[in-house]
């Protein structure tokens, strides 16, 4: 079946809604991370336990505003590494009141957009035609030539439609079918109501803090994709590409 030469109206509409919600999610997610810029692995992680990664992104980074830790270990054994507690005396940066609510609102918009996109994409055949590589495309010679062209920045001129190149298809498919769903699921693994109903999510990702760390890594991946995506739009003809994905000319 032929690939259309123009982006369908629903593709342009869902692209716009997705782009807007991803920007809002990235910004509000950054604000949320600033409230606790430490990442961990496993179920548990807090200021009194060691971090996997500490990000210097707010005044909360390595603040020393804690009272002397005292043991809260069950029983009388106060061995090394036993659980302790300390009270916070430092007023942290925390804008999570609006940060969290905005993050979830944008999440709802992206979820609805994604559902609409996948439904219309499956029904119309767009996903199969435009995003999945054709069998004859995936040959060693073709793949090598595509990679070589990209490394030498020999970029095809904009066509203004969904007749994507092999690497382009693969990148879009990874984002649509893997990265975005995984970001949503790791996000939901941080919800105590959701994990009460679906505790296997905690098992799947190795704990709440692991899910949070993976959620952050996926955000970094999406950021990388966005930079690559915009770079390719610029290199292949910015005006033509933006017009094609917005007004559809």
């Amino acid at each position, binding site marked *: 079946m032929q690939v259309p030469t123009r982006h369908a109206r629903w593709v342009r509409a869902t692209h716009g809604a997705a782009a807007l919600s991803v920007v809002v999610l990235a910004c509000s997610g950054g604000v949320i991370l600033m409230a606790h810029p430490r990442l961990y692995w496993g*179920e548990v992680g807090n200021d009194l336990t060691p971090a996997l990664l500490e990000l210097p992104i707010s005044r909360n980074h390595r603040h020393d505003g804690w009272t002397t830790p005292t043991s809260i270990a069950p029983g009388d054994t106060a061995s090394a590494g036993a659980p302790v507690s300390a009270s916070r005396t430092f007023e942290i940066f925390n804008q999570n009141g*609006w940060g969290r609510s905005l993050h979830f*609102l944008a999440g709802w918009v992206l979820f609805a957009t994604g559902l609409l996109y996948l439904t219309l994409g499956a029904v119309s055949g767009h996903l199969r035609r435009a995003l999945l590589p054709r069998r004859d495309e995936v040959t060693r010679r073709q793949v090598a030539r595509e990679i070589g062209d990209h490394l030498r920045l020999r970029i095809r001129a904009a066509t203004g439609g969904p007749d994507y190149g092999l690497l382009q298809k693969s990148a879009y498919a990874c984002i649509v079918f893997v990265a975005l769903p995984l970001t949503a699921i790791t996000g939901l693994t941080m919800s105590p109501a959701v994990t009460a109903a679906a505790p296997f999510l905690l098992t799947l990702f190795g704990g709440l803090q692991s899910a949070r760390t993976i959620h952050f890594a996926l955000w970094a991946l999406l950021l990388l994709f966005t930079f690559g995506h915009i770079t390719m739009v610029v290199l292949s003809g910015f005006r033509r590409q933006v017009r094609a994905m917005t007004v559809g000319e």
Partner: protein
Amino acid sequence: MPPRLRLTRRDALIGGLTAAGGMLLTGCATDLPPTYGHLLRMGDNLTYVAHRALLPGQALAREYSRGDISSFPAIGTTNPADTALPTHHPEFAPVYAELRRGDFADFRLDIAGSVARPGTYSLSDLKRMPARTQITRHVCEEGWSAVAEWTGVPLGHVLQAAGILPTARYVTFQTFDRFGDNIDLLDAFHPQTLLAYGMNGRDLPVPHGGPLRVRVETQIGYKSVKYVRRLLVHDAFDDLGANGPIRNGWSWYAGI
């Protein structure tokens, strides 16, 4: 102009989404928390309605073993008697200080509102009720988590002992500091929702809400209100004004 007879794709989409939204909103909750026209609060309510519609409300949060008990920061109010803290309550800070001097022997939990038998309960009254001990994970909205063992009486038991009335819909926790909050009856009667007086096998330490705090294991940490002094059972939603989350820009429902 002749009347348009064909249903366009746009009509179908708009009609379908409106109908779905309408069903979602009317299907479960008759009175939702107020939004005051705030877009973010509407999003919060969407999450609340979706969770109530899609999740089994009485599913138990994962419980852990004693070996999983971890270090646990104390944040927010860590001593309601400390009048230097901006979170202290001018009226109740001295009351709390006095109770603490007596090791909370004179502490009384007050239960009022839509109950047949309003009254007061001492800590030993509460400890004589059926107890539940659970090792659960506390998730703070800030992003950190900690595991601890909590011992207390299921809130649902206390509400039934007080004769909760059939008109009741929400339970408010009034505290010794400036914060208060409330939960719906689905969370109030969740088997893991406790009025906790013990942590890790000892009396609940003051920085963690002693002598009595709430544990709501299906919501984020700030719903597990510390320093509870009074339960107020409501028939209608109460945003608690400046003491509640909504007027301070926070979501009332924090299951996510």
